[in-house]
């Protein structure tokens, strides 16, 4: 049984409602319809169409609908304005490649679009009298469908997860978007300014989607240009920082990933005053109204003391009767922390420290030295003490002189001067901790510090058992020995036939 008839040349009357021949004689309705069995085929169709041309030209009339047949099977239809047989030819070619069937029609009844069997298209043999939203007529079947729901194309785009690119295909664009959590934003501003990266920054804010969040979500968005590879590698490796490569000015995909559908070909989906960022893990950040961007040089924190001395005062020479004395002060700095070798934690955190000691690796226990005071516990590790997540970190700014990490002593005198100043007021061998600005530093004698493994553990006693050292891992030296003596040593030696070895094809490399 066939449901279609081939259209003839110059045929003007058709049983299929709403179709007519175009200038080439091809049967064409106002709409084209593509029927796909599943959503992944739809995605494949858009990927292929977007790679080959622009999706923007079909987006204005495009609808994607999930339909259901009387037998309750669900399929996907795409309807779009047919416009001309040239466009429909291209759509049909790509749709068939992606596993879809192509139809044309105007309202409810859609007849199969032309193919190689019938170059001018088809007409319906008999119009079906069924109550359905869409009826499609193919050579092999006739099917009625009811529309279940519509799938907006933008929603489809946002739900697709970008896939990781192989290393060989990765490129670096000259312009990049970088997002940073609010805690990292100012540090990143300082970093980009210090390395003279051409960048501007905005603070994006939108209400939280979770009822458990008390604050709106905030994110620093950087627009950087001509960034050096080493800086890019650093940014990529930082937790809380994400690098995006833009596709057009309003949409970007995380660096190293590619969206399944060519975003360049469907820019009209994204409003011009917004920014849509696709993370590699599938998260999509939509900044609906783009906040204003400002250059990073305008936002670098500059220390200004309004209450400071008037610079216009006359300078006088220093004299013994009127000495010029400046106290050492603690001031925050923007430099990355270094020489973090000390921790001061309050005495009330002592139980926490005791629990932590059970978890620390042997190397840390071996190298950490500890002094226990009435109010504070002081810990030192010359190799770095970041592995202890308690208390407040201190950096060593000069020998045995410590300031809280992120702070520095001002005026910024040489470390040797600090050491001299510290040695004047203290006995030799004391550690100096500047804990609060404006207060005198705390001195802890070096003799008060002891190794954790010796000072804290109780005396060991146990049962002596017999044990031996495990075998050496280094192999012993080889010893040369000769086999049995033979009168004619080369008799029976293999491989003596040829002196110039010729390797066969497929040789062992």
């Amino acid at each position, binding site marked *: 049984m066939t449901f279609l008839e081939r259209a003839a040349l110059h045929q003007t009357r058709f049983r299929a409602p709403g179709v007519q021949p175009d200038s080439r004689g091809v049967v064409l309705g106002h709409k084209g319809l593509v029927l796909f069995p599943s959503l992944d085929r739809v995605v494949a169709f858009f990927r292929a169409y977007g790679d080959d041309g622009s999706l923007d030209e079909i987006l204005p009339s495009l609808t994607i609908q999930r339909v259901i047949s009387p037998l309750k099977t669900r399929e996907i239809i795409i309807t779009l304005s047919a416009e001309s047989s040239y466009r429909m030819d291209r759509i049909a070619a790509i749709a068939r490649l992606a596993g879809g069937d192509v139809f044309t029609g105007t309202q409810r009844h859609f007849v199969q679009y032309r193919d190689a069997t019938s170059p001018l298209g088809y007409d319906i043999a008999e119009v079906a009298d069924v109550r359905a939203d869409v009826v499609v007529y193919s050579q092999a079947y006739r099917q009625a469908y009811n529309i279940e729901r519509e799938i907006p194309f933008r929603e489809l785009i946002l739900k697709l997860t970008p896939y990781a690119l192989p290393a060989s295909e990765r490129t670096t664009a000259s312009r990049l978007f970088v997002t940073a959590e609010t805690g990292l934003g100012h540090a990143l501003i300082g970093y980009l300014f210090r*390395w003279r990266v051409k960048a501007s920054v905005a603070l994006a804010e939108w209400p939280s989607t979770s009822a458990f969040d008390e604050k709106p979500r905030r994110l620093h968005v950087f627009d950087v240009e001509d960034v050096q590879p080493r800086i890019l590698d650093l940014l990529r490796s930082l937790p809380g920082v994400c690098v995006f490569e833009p596709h057009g000015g309003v949409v970007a995909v995380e660096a190293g990933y590619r969206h399944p559908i060519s975003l360049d070909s469907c820019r009209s989906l994204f409003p011009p005053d917004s920014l849509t960022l696709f993370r590699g893990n599938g998260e999509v950040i939509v900044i609906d109204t783009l906040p204003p961007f400002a250059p990073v040089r305008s936002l670098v924190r500059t220390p200004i003391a309004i209450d400071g001395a008037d610079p216009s005062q006359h300078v006088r020479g220093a004299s013994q009767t009127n000495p010029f004395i400046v106290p050492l002060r603690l001031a925050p700095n923007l430099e990355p922390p270094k020489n973090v070798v000390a921790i001061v934690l309050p005495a009330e955190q002592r139980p926490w420290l005791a629990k932590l000691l059970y978890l620390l690796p042997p190397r840390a226990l071996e190298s950490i030295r500890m002094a226990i005071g009435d109010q504070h516990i002081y810990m030192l590790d010359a190799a770095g003490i970041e592995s202890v997540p308690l208390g407040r970190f201190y950096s060593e700014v000069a020998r045995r002189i410590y300031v809280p990490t992120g702070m520095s002593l001002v005026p910024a005198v040489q470390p040797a001067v600090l050491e001299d100043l510290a040695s004047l007021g203290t006995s030799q061998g004391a550690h100096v901790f500047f804990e609060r600005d404006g207060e005198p530093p705390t001195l802890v004698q070096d003799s008060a510090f002891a190794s954790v493994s010796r000072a804290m553990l109780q005396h060991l006693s146990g049962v002596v058992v017999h044990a031996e050292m495990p075998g050496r891992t280094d192999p012993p030296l*080889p010893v*040369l*020995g*000769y086999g049995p003596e033979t009168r004619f040593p*080369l008799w029976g030696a293999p*491989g*003596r036939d040829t002196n110039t070895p010729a390797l066969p094809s497929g040789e062992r*490399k």
Partner: protein
Amino acid sequence: MSDPAQMQLAYDTLLGSFLLPLLEGGNVTVSKPIGPGCASYFAQTRCGSIDTDRRIFDALHRASSAIANVETLHWPSLPILAMSAAMYNLLCATDPAYDRLFARDARKTIRSWSEGWLSLVSTPRTRGDALARHVLVERFISLKRQDLVLRSWAYTYRFHGRQPKIITVPGLGFDNPERHDRNLDQVLAHAASSGTGFHLADIADAIFHRSPLTQLLAVGRNQGPFSQAPSSPFVFSIATLTTLSDRALRSAVAGRLLVQEAASASVLGLALFQPELLANPALLAIAIQLLLEMHIMGALDRRSAAPGRDNGDLGFARYAAVLVASIDDEHAVRELETFDDGHRALVQRRAEGLRQRVPRDVLLEMRGHLQRALEQEPDFLPS
């Protein structure tokens, strides 16, 4: 053509009696030499014992990983097999039993066979290949032979690398057996000083030069591992530069050469201005990378001052000039910018310490070479 069963037996013997104990330690036994006509068979066969293959792979991989990070090694591989066969034949030829009549001429044949095997070994193609060769050659050089001398009032018996065939009874002579452990160099010298006077050290030296990594790691030593081989100054060959172009191997070499930095620096500095290197900036860049990496590792990892050396040593002056010229040129080592201030200060401090030991003409010359090398290799220390 040789019988395939005979060649398979030779292959199994080479792996089971020679290569495996060489790598794992123990008694290495050599008996019947192996001709290079077996190469095409060896290239396609597998060892009869899976356990032997696995243990050789384990030993190679374990020793290689101690030098540099390596994912896996290609085993069995023809270069390793060919080098093993050349070593095996060389050791066969050191057997004093070959001094006998009718056996003396065999040494010439065995020597040509070793050369035939070595002709199959070209420049290493992978990091694993370079590391495996080094492991093999290093174990080969560490070979020793136990010689035993038994004396009575009438006779003296000498057993070189063999168990004594006579029974020693206390009180009946042979009470004080003399045992000598001879290293490979002494074994080769012993073979050369025997009745035939046949020299084998040049073959041993050729085996040594098939491992560029071993050559590089031996740079600071006074002479090569074989005293009888003709001594020649170290040069950056294509094989050594190919090895150094691998970053992991370059770091491993730099780290080990720093142990005896002063001696290594002098040799490397002299080799840096060899004409073949200056004619090709791409090759020069690799050599400079090694020297620069030594400087930076010396400054950052060891945190030590620059080594002391007389101003008259031209090699050391060139070595020092690499760092001074690189620091002077803002664009030479862009990665220095990524160092934090403390680390950069250490490198600069080292450069300033070396500056006074670099003659002006050497520095100017080095700047010119550095510029040419930079055009070929803009990223000296890829981050």
